């Protein structure tokens, strides 16, 4: 035994001290537990996070599902609502938040109790016919949303002075390539960061010095305008805030996160927090637009440039740029996730192989569906002379119309004793759930009848 051996290579001898790591990091104190009357300190156990950390660990699917509502279509609808009716539609957001939280919670609960996606459950419980019907609804609802996202991409780049006819096809190709090549997860964070540009809305809302009294009144006192524009926006708000896609996404995300039925209780917090945050954001969009545009008498938003003015209190002449970056991020994010999630859940219904790691031979159906969605979305968004904001609002209205179908399926499934066991809906949830369904259905019926009557020249409601 000499010093010629490098450290750690000495022949092992009684006197040899094994090499200690040069500096020991601070080691967690571990958890002291009692096993059969013997107390041991175990550092290998995960410490259950406590306090604020505990809540942070739970947050996840709900926040993402919630913010998915604030995409291109959402911004258009909230801006239009704020510009046209000032603070008068804020109470709708308050009401919707309750409905949304209830609906999303039921979706999350379905996911945790069964470990399955919504369309998958519909296939197994209601058979092939109903599941194809549901798939049809989802294809239409998500299809138009995807068009909406590409419209959002186009509108954002036009604000920056670039032609949408160049960027939309480019974005479609890039998104398709990123997802199919499996490197999407890496760029997702960039899109998210860009979408954070919309955090300027709350700041802008405060800097615009709205009359907070009026804001509070608008949020609490239901003010109803008897006009077809109001009822149209009402359905649009419902459709953009409570989207079929959000329920499907929430359920898949809960399944994917691996939430089991026995740990479901605390996951509720995630859903509630996510929905409240998302709707708070929506409310700030309405307030910011109302306080900047509505008050000066600009009551119709015709383009993205108009909507961007709501950010002027915070960004001044850079309002358009800030708005464009936020819109581009949010639209790119949803533009990739929506076709992907749709292809995923539809493949699941038919039992076809799914996932982005498949090649075209094995994942023919999955990848074709994804590709068709991206192409269709991009092509339809390039229709020349498309009225951007109107198109986006109508897309949300269409989603609102399709919402009751998905809600019925969710409510039936979540009351299925064999499926849900003790996680079945309580009476309160059923009242709130069916209540939401009734509210949405009544609003849609009124909207459709006024539109139809309007089309044949009968105006029941004002302008």
């Amino acid at each position, binding site marked *: 035994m000499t010093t010629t*051996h490098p450290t*750690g*290579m*000495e*022949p*092992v001898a*009684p006197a*040899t*001290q*094994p*090499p*200690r*790591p040069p500096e020991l990091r601070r*080691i*967690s104190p*571990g*958890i002291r*537990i*009692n*096993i*059969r009357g013997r107390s041991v*300190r*175990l*550092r*290998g*156990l*995960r*410490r*259950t996070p406590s306090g604020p950390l505990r809540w942070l660990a739970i947050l996840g699917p709900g926040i993402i599902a919630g913010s998915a509502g604030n995409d291109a279509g959402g911004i258009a609808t909230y801006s239009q609502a704020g510009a046209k009716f000032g603070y008068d539609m804020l109470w709708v957001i308050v009401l919707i938040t309750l409905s949304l939280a209830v609906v999303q919670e039921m979706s999350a609960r379905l996911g945790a109790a*069964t*470990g*399955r996606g919504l369309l*998958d459950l519909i*296939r*197994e419980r209601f*058979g*092939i*016919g109903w599941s*194809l019907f549901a798939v049809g609804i989802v294809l239409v609802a998500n299809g138009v949303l995807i068009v909406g996202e590409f419209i959002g991409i186009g509108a954002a780049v036009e604000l920056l002075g670039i032609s949408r006819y160049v960027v939309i096809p480019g974005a479609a190709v890039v998104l398709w390539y990123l997802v199919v090549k*499996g490197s999407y*997860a890496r760029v997702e964070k960039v899109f998210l960061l860009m979408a954070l540009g919309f955090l300027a809305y709350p700041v802008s809302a405060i800097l615009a010095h709205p009359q907070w009294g009026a804001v509070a009144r608008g949020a609490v006192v239901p003010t109803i305008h008897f006009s077809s524009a109001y009822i149209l926006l009402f359905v649009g708000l419902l459709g953009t805030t409570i989207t079929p896609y959000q329920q499907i*996404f929430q359920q*898949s*995300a809960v*399944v*994917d996160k*691996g939430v*089991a039925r*026995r740990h479901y209780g605390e996951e509720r917090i995630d859903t509630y927090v996510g929905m409240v945050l998302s709707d708070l954001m929506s409310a700030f969009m309405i307030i910011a637009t109302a306080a900047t545009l509505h008050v000066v008498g600009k009551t119709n938003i015709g383009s993205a440039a108009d909507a961007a003015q709501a950010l002027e209190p915070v960004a001044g002449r850079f309002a358009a740029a800030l708005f464009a970056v936020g819109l581009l991020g949010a639209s790119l994010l949803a533009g990739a996730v929506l076709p*992907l*999630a749709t292809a*995923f859940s539809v493949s699941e*219904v*038919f*039992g076809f*192989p799914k*996932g*982005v*790691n498949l090649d075209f031979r094995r994942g023919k159906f999955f990848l074709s569906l994804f590709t068709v969605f991206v192409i269709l979305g991009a092509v339809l968004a390039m229709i020349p002379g498309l009225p951007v904001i109107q198109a986006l609002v109508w897309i949300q209205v269409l989603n609102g119309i399709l919402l009751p179908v998905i809600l019925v399926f969710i409510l039936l499934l979540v009351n299925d004793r*064999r499926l849900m066991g003790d996680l079945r809906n309580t009476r309160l949830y059923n009242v709130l759930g069916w209540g939401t369904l009734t509210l949405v259905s009544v609003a849609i019926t009124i909207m459709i009848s006024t539109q139809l009557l309007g089309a044949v020249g009968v105006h029941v409601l004002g302008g």
Partner: protein
Amino acid sequence: MILLSQLLRYELIDRSGRRAVPVDFTIDLGADHPPVTGLLWRRAREATRFLPWEAVDSLDRDRQRFVVADLSGDDTPVEESTDRRVLLRRDVLDALVIDLSARRAMRANDLMLEAEGGALRLAAVDASAWAVLRRLSRGVVGHDADEPSDWSYVEFLRGDPQAPTCGVDYNRRITRLPPGEIARLMEALPYLEAAELVTLLPDALAADTLEVMSPQRQLQVFEELDETVAIRLVALMAPDAVADLVGHLRAEMAERYLGLLPPECRERVVDLLRYPEDTVGGIMTNDVVVVPPSATIGQAVDIIRGQVATPDLVYYVYVVEDLASRELRGMITLRTLLLAEVDQRVADVMDPYLVTLHPLTPAREAAQRVVDSQLFALPVVGADGRLLGAVTVDAAVLQVAPESWRKDVPRVFA
């Protein structure tokens, strides 16, 4: 071959001419081609009733009807939605089933039955898209399945992890697949079905399968298992795998499970759990084979023969002063041991120059050394010179491999 979707459009007629429609079929899943044991039927606006298969006189395929003895409907109605039996339409049709020959999960788009003698047996699953078209068009469009999956190579799961312990029948052919393949199949299943699958495997296979599952899936499945089953399986797993699993449980659960483990297994697991998961102690195994240096090769072979049944790492035999102090002296490979003369001493043929690891060294740093060393494992030695265990190259690769390799399935919703 008759399709289930066709059978559901058949009619029931009894000897006195009463008519009814079949609603569903009960089945006994114990056999390779399980026989239909009875049918649920209903007459317009009446309750659903059960008819045992023995009461079916014949299956008239030309006139598309079942001829049965008596449809007077005097027996008690059954509640179709809560019936505990396996029903073909309600449970099996449209379900996700495992195709053992193609080793994938597939949708039972239609079921093919075979009438032979007086019996009706479930013969195959049609998972093709044609089956969907055929069902929607009521048989007008679509052709017969090109390659139906023979039911004897299909495993049907109920989504109830407790079912296999309640004497419910399964095909159980899946038990012939290797554990890695079963774990891979399981990733495509909802977690309740995955837990059910683990429960129906024989204990040793179930333990091996649990070991190779992805950590998140493993935890999910483990928590769904019945406690006695869970303890039985854990006792059969390698101690380092158990420590990883228990380390992810909540403290109260960990305390409870550790208390229930067999004492020897518990000691090993607790020893590993003393170290944080991102240190050498957190990734090592402490199930290693040891011999004293004073033993002759002949004695050494006898000594290790009793130890090599369970450890994963058997190729490296560590030489320790005595079993009480476990002071590390050197290492000897199984090859050297087999090639040496029987009367040589272990101390003379062993390799005394060892790279050793300290249990509190950061895991990634140590893992890199293991990979760089080109050896199967490096021993872990405590401050007092005591052999604590070894970090195998398997464990090391998991630490140094890029994130994207560790999970070969990219997560869509990540």
